[in-house]
């Protein structure tokens, strides 16, 4: 690395004055850089370009933030794929709209102390928390957030649902209609769900019911005047999702009618029983539905079979009569 640079910049107290009078720290922790993922790969000038010789050319930025925004694109020299992904992201859109607080590469990854975050769910989620405090606080109390802080690698961190570089606006209809597939990524995985005794039938049973049928059509094309039909998160919660046996769960029997009333304001106490809680009807679970199903499974073939037999007899008699007449 650039020992020449460190002759001055290893002093952590080193500062410079920007045009306009703001002070910017220009000292760096050489030990932290050495430990970073770039420590044995990059020199100072790989990222800090255009600083040739001493004294350095004068800077035009008027603030520390302006400096970051003007120089973060150095990352794309090597990380072009992830850089282009960020161009489609919500963060980049906000930045392009003029919000200087929108995060760029270095805000999430750091500058000198970049570490590999893959597989480090807690660290990832806490990175997001530096701006999204409220969402993080809610997530930290959820079944996913609690488990992740205990070191559980099965539960999602922020980026598992939102994506890392190309996170899109999650408030759109398209994100809403596509979200069951997102939950299903893990919730239909028999191996993962098996560890917690959670059914993998949840997506199938959802898609068979009114909400799921409608949403699977909306997913392809949502009519402009369509009302919102429930997806997983509308009943279970988004960041604050709880285990279904948690007394605070929005879908536990005691709270369910309140959840239904979000969309069905006149729902009565009896109404939630209309939903079979992802269970297949059976003689013990939703017996009425089960027996209606069994009845028609027998009744339909019985009646139609009988009628077809009657038709067969009619045709048979006609044929016999004609043959007899031919023979005279």
């Amino acid at each position: 690395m650039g020992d020449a640079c460190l002759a001055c910049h290893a002093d952590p107290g080193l500062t410079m004055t920007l045009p306009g009078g703001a002070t910017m720290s220009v000292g760096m922790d050489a030990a932290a850089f050495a430990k970073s993922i770039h420590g044995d790969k990059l020199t100072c000038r790989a990222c800090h370009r255009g600083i040739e010789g001493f004294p350095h050319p004068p800077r035009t930025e008027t603030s520390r933030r302006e400096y970051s925004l003007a120089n973060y694109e150095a990352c794309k020299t090597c990380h072009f794929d992830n850089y282009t992904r960020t161009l489609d992201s919500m963060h980049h859109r906000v930045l392009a709209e003029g919000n200087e607080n929108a995060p760029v590469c270095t805000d999430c990854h750091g500058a000198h102390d970049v570490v590999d975050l893959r597989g480090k769910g807690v660290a990832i989620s806490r990175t997001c928390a530096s701006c999204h405090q409220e969402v993080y606080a809610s997530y930290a109390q959820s079944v996913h957030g609690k488990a992740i802080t205990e070191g559980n690698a099965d539960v999602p961190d922020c980026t598992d649902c939102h994506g890392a570089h190309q996170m899109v606006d999650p408030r759109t209809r398209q994100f809403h209609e596509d979200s069951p597939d997102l939950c299903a990524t893990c919730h239909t995985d028999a191996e993962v769900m098996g560890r917690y005794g959670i059914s993998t039938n949840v997506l199938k049973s959802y898609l068979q019911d009114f909400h799921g049928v409608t949403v699977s059509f909306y997913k392809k094309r949502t009519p402009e005047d369509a009302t919102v039909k429930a997806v997983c998160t509308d009943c279970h919660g988004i960041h604050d999702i709880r285990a279904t046996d948690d007394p605070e769960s929005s879908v536990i029997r005691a709270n369910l009618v309140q959840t239904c009333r979000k969309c069905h304001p006149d729902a009565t106490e009896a109404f939630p029983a209309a939903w079979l809680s992802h269970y297949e009807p059976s003689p013990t679970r939703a017996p009425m539905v089960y027996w209606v199903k069994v009845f028609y499974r027998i009744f339909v073939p019985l009646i139609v079979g009988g009628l077809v037999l009657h038709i067969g007899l009619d045709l048979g008699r006609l044929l016999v009569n004609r043959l007899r007449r031919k023979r005279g």
Partner: protein
Amino acid sequence: MPSDVSSSAERRAEPWVVRFALPQRIEHLLLVVSFTLLVLTGLPQRFAATGWAQSMIWAFGGIDSTRLIHRAFAVMFMVEGAWHAAWVTWLLATRRARPSMLPTPRDVTDSVRQIGYYLGIAKAEPAYDRYDYRQKFEYWGVVWGGVVMVVTGLIMMFPTRAAAILPGEFIPAAKEAHGGEALLAFLVIVTWHLYGAHLNPHRFPADTTIFTGRITRRRMEAEHPLELARMVDRGDPSARPPEA
């Protein structure tokens, strides 16, 4: 049923009997239109996970408009049903018509004799009145099926109101029954009704009686001799025996 099939030209020249009045023919048309549209928009909803069903739903403009069309024709079906019930009640109450659709013990013996004839046990088919047991079976099938479809359909159309007077489980049970009964109705129509009324060799390609109201005197003699006799007795002008 007549066992000889005459040419269409011959049939046109034959004397006719009036079998169905205009209101009955209009009712049947309303039933054909509403039933067809209900099946076209309903069955794809029951099988919404399959490709053909999804193509049909998109052809109707998506799931919301498919449901809207379904409900619109359901209203047509219900209005037709209510009109029929009122009209029949009035006809019977004022003794303008006999309860000719009511099942009688004779229907049981008729069906046994008819099947006996098919099997070669009975020499001749039974002599039928205005409606034979097959027609009565179908009529009461429509009545029973219609009531099931209307009740379960209304439960699904107004789920929160239904849950105000019924246990919540009635809603998924109604959905199950609506789908089962619909499949039964559809299969009965495409087998039993289309064969019985149109596709069987005696009638092929179509029996127009319910549309025109007219049936040949010859068919009436063969298929509904008791009714023809009754019409002659009460002096129905259309049933007058032809001049020899």
